[in-house]
């Protein structure tokens, strides 16, 4: 490339001699004899090298050179001066000039100075371009790091031994900063490689693979994730690492489970609902005919039947509502003895209809408890009614008794014990009784009652213990903390689909 040279020298003959010399060297150049001329020329030609005699002690030229250098740092200045002015010129311009030559200028010295100036120009140009590239690189790197970190899924990069070499922010949040650990240890808390591993598959064939996994975060929470892998290759095209991207689909799965079980529920309950409606029709029919015939006995009996069926339908609808909707508990301070009396009162009608004796031992000095009275009472009634049903279904004994005891276990714990001498439960029923849609009552049951009762007790921070022997009877111990502060926080009922006294009873796994 050509480097235009601007010569500033008030000694016109010297300037011309230089000009002729440079032209002979095929270097384009322009001459100026005063700083003003130089300024006009410089604006037009954008010289890259200025060859100047500062013409000291006059300071005009040095001032012009300094101002050019301050606005155009890339311009290279070579000073030509006499021996007398040499030191002063150096003192004035210091590092603003790349070279100082003695006048009259010798051609070899000028060549060397120009060569050096051009080298500086070239180096500066390269440096500028590298700086620009570096800036772009930093910007890109920052952008990619941001993308890597902010993508709403877990990203990890793994080597051939499944060690994590990089993880994104979301991953670090839920699984810790575990660079160097094994993927299977961090995601699944395993000691060895998983049986099926999409990362291993990608290392083997270089393609993307996908699996659905259940992983456990450092807080112990389980996440359903959809995992995709992609190979990372080096310059030679060899796969050195594999990137694994996992999207959390826990909520989708939960929703899906909930919808599935809602569908299942509607299906399994339709027979029961139809039976109840038919029985309600029966009650209404007998009520109508009883009234028409003025048969009071029939009317009374019919009215009882209508009342009973309405109660059953009401209970079922409430159960469906409870299950279908996520429900927060509405706590109130309730007198325990009064609530227990109501529970017994609610169950009394059914007990007497089915010929079961219901005995209550409720201490009047039980104090108050923080509960949602609607749901806790419904849950307790459910346990008592189940005990009564267990008696009604029993064919081995003549006399049946259900007892309901309420007493204080400690200053902050209250216990209800419901005992019956009914049919008792076999092992299977005992294991499954709190499972969703499990019923031992055929079309009479929805499989929701004990599931919900158990959930309600759990939500209140309570515990249930069951003793039962087939043909002999059952005993339910239900214990609850009196104050809300002693209750653990629970997830809303509808978000969790499975339950059981212990994990073995879960049928959804």
């Amino acid at each position: 490339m050509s480097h235009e040279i601007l010569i500033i020298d008030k000694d016109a003959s010297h300037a011309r001699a230089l000009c002729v010399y440079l032209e002979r060297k095929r270097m384009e150049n322009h001459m100026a004899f005063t700083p003003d001329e130089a300024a006009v020329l410089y604006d037009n030609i954008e010289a890259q090298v200025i060859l100047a005699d500062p013409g000291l002690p006059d300071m005009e030229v040095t001032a012009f050179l300094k101002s050019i250098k301050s606005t155009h740092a890339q311009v290279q200045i070579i000073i030509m001066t006499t021996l007398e002015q040499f030191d002063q010129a150096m003192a004035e311009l210091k590092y603003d000039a790349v070279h100082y030559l003695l006048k009259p200028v010798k051609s070899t010295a000028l060549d060397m100075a120009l060569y050096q100036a051009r080298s500086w120009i070239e180096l500066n140009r390269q440096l500028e371009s590298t700086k620009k590239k570096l800036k772009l690189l930093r910007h890109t790197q920052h952008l990619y790091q941001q993308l890597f970190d902010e993508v709403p899924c877990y990203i990890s990069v793994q080597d051939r031994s499944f060690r994590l070499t990089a993880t994104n922010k979301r991953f670090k949040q839920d699984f810790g900063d575990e660079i160097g650990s094994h993927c299977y240890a961090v995601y699944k808390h395993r000691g060895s490689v998983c049986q099926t591993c999409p990362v291993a598959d990608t290392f083997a064939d270089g393609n993307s693979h996908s699996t659905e996994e259940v992983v456990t975060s450092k807080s112990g929470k389980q996440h359903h994730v959809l995992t995709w892998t992609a190979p990372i290759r080096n310059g030679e095209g060899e796969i050195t690492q594999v990137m694994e991207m996992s999207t959390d689909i826990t909520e989708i799965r939960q929703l899906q489970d909930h919808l599935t079980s809602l569908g299942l529920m509607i299906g399994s309950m339709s027979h029961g609902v139809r039976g109840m409606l038919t029985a309600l029709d029966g009650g209404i029919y007998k009520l109508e005919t009883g009234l028409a015939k003025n048969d009071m006995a029939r009317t009374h009996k019919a009215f009882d039947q209508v009342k009973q069926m309405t109660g059953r339908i009401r209970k079922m609808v409430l159960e469906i509502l409870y299950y279908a909707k996520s429900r927060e508990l509405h706590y109130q301070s309730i007198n325990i003895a009064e609530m227990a009396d109501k529970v017994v009162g609610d169950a009394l009608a059914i007990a007497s209809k089915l010929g079961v004796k219901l005995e209550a031992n409720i201490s009047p000095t039980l104090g108050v408890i923080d509960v949602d009275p609607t749901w806790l009472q419904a849950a307790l009634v459910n346990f008592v009614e189940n005990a009564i049903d267990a008696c009604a279904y029993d064919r081995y004994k003549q006399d049946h008794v259900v007892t309901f005891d309420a007493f204080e276990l400690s200053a902050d714990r209250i216990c209800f014990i419901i005992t019956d001498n009914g049919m008792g439960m076999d092992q299977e029923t005992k294991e499954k009784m709190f499972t969703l849609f499990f019923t031992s009552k055929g079309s009479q049951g929805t499989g929701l009652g004990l599931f919900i009762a158990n959930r309600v007790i759990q939500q209140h921070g309570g515990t249930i213990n069951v003793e039962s022997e087939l043909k002999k009877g059952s005993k339910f111990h239900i214990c609850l903390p009196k104050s809300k502060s002693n209750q653990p926080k629970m997830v809303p009922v509808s978000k969790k689909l499975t339950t059981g006294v212990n994990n073995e009873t879960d049928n959804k796994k």
Partner: protein
Amino acid sequence: MKKILIVDDDPNILDYMTSLFEDSGFKTFTARDVQEGLKIAKKEVPDLITLDLEMPDEWGPRFYRKMSQDKSLKNIPVIVISGLSGGDHAVGKAVAYLTKPFDRDELLKIVKETLHVS
């Protein structure tokens, strides 16, 4: 007096249908499961049977199959009254198929037509 056997596991429904049929001048018998139903059917030889399809121990269609194998019972008309919908073919030779909750006038009409009673 024409005799009707009602087979259903729900005591409330048995009670309902007993009243309904007796008020219309029929004699009724009730059975809560397949075994009991077959026993009464053999003993009383009813003129008509109403049959629920879903019962806890045995299915209604099984009752119908067993009944069809008995010469004295196989010609008794059967009305299926079930809480299941879409099971019309479970009992092929049923004279009618009603879904719970049923229309009692419709049931009585079918019963009277089947038994030629006005």
